[in-house]
């Protein structure tokens, strides 16, 4: 492979790695700070992706819209709708303990995901939404457009990171961590646990929706296959746990490392005999699982363990 080929591969790797970073940072807002076990990430991702797809693609008889609106509008709508869905789920489930929240969130998010992908009038069903634009498409094509998209994705990653970091450093983040560590004690020091948990679930859901929107623009075509929970929910969890939950840098590092391994396992499974091909995704899952096992044996809290943020105060002697 010549140099530009490698560069091109690297760019597309970093685009997907960036999208996963956004998901992972969002999951860190929910689980890392707040202890909220969201097992329905793919649902929020789907809501975001389809919202953006429908808002920004050209008008078509195949499904509602498209509305041919700017990409920024699509992103805002994607985040907002996903956040509203998150709020509704939080209203129902946030009172539940972690394991029940996991079941409830996976159930509800799957229902929403299946509804979205099966309502043909809304999303064109299994045929998917096509002709989704990328930013500045009219000026750049081919590999250049990929470069532009790479920059676009990483601007969003930077914004997400900035938000996550501010939350983590703030008294708000401290309350969330307290609730995560001990709910009853947090109540006893006057924190409205339900309200805080709802907030953290919603802010996470917003960014999961934004990540979905990014992927819709990247693929330019979005169909139900892309919302496969194994690819979204499972991988995002592995990324956060391996990277270090409660640590934003860990979330990004985990996303990139696991995505790199995931991509490499594809190269391995391509070498397998054809009758294994149908099982390849499960083999890849297994390899990723083994890697996670390996990491956690060595680093119990992930590669970048949680650290208490530096206090923004002056200490007098």
């Amino acid at each position, binding site marked *: 492979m010549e140099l530009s080929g490698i560069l091109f591969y690297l760019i597309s790797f970093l685009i997907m790695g960036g999208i996963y970073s956004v998901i992972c940072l969002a999951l860190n807002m929910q689980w890392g700070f707040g202890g909220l076990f969201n097992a329905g990430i793919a649902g929020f991702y789907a809501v975001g992706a389809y919202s953006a797809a429908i808002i920004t693609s050209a008008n078509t008889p195949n499904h509602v819209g498209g509305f041919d609106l700017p990409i920024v509008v699509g992103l805002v709508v994607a985040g907002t709708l996903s956040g509203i869905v998150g709020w509704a789920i939080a209203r129902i489930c946030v009172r539940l303990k972690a394991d029940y929240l996991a079941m409830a969130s996976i159930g509800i998010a799957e229902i929403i995901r299946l509804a979205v992908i099966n309502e043909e009038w809304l999303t064109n069903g299994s045929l998917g939404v096509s002709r989704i634009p990328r930013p500045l498409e009219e000026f750049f094509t081919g590999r250049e457009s990929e470069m532009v998209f790479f920059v676009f994705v990483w601007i969003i990653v930077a914004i997400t990171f900035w938000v996550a970091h501010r939350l983590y450093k703030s008294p708000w983040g401290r309350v969330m961590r307290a609730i995560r560590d001990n709910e009853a004690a*947090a109540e006893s020091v006057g924190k409205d646990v339900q309200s805080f948990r709802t907030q953290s679930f919603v802010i996470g859901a917003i960014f999961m929706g934004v990540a979905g929107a990014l992927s819709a623009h990247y693929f330019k075509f979005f169909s139900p296959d892309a919302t496969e929970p194994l690819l979204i929910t499972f991988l995002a969890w592995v990324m956060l746990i391996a990277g270090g939950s*409660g640590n934003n840098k860990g979330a990004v590092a985990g996303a990139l490392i696991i995505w790199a391994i995931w991509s490499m396992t594809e190269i391995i499974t391509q070498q397998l005999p054809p009758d294994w091909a149908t099982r390849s995704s499960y083999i890849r899952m297994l390899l990723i699982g083994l890697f996670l096992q390996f990491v956690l044996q060595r680093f119990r809290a992930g590669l970048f363990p949680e650290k208490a943020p530096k206090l923004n105060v002056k200490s007098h002697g």
Partner: protein
Amino acid sequence: MIAFENITMRFGGVAAVDRCSFEIPTGKITGLIGPNGAGKTTAFNVIAGHLRPTSGRVLLEGEDITALPAHKRQAMGIARTFQLAHEFHRMTVVENLMVAAKNELGENMLNAIFRPGQCKLQEQAAYDRAMETLRFLEIEQLKDQLAGDLSGGQKKLLELGRALMQHPKIILLDEIGAGVNRTLLGKIAEKIIQLNKERGYTICLIEHDLDYVSRLCDTVIVMAQGTLLTTGTVEEVSRDERVIEAYFGGGKYQEAI
């Protein structure tokens, strides 16, 4: 004053607290004693709002607070510690205390994202107060340790500190002395008396060691099997036949010795 009025708290078939009434007078140190399983911790949970009673009312200075959730009772001046350690284990000691201070500005999510500078003054105040509290409890050297790594006794002090951070009117201490060494125990007793005498805090404490209770408390409330047995000074109640009966179970124990 807290009035615990005819409270029943059922868990399925078990009535942990059964038509129990008592009062915690303002400005005093009151003990709550009774055998294991008497319902003392459950009574605290009902007062602090962690449990909603099956029936009965909790009054704070005459106001019915039975329906208020725990976090709102804290705002009314009720602070507590827990029988089993309830520290925020992945946070540092100073963070454990700071989180108990109210920071209205910084705890607002939008402020946290867009205007982090706004909460600076409150943050500084919380920090100063946390350090002052740690110094009062003589554990300031632990400030940057993870609370989960503290010893059992240190966790008890941490919880006391967390309660003090809240400017409470009433502090409920659930076996603050359990598992704590004698020196530290004496120190905690000193602090409790100091808090009561100098700061005027109302204190109610659950404790099994009657000597300790008699050292600290003006009056004691005795519970057994979910109900109020009697109240009075430690002297009085420890002579009470029913108390001896409840503690030592029908005289068999006394026969044995």
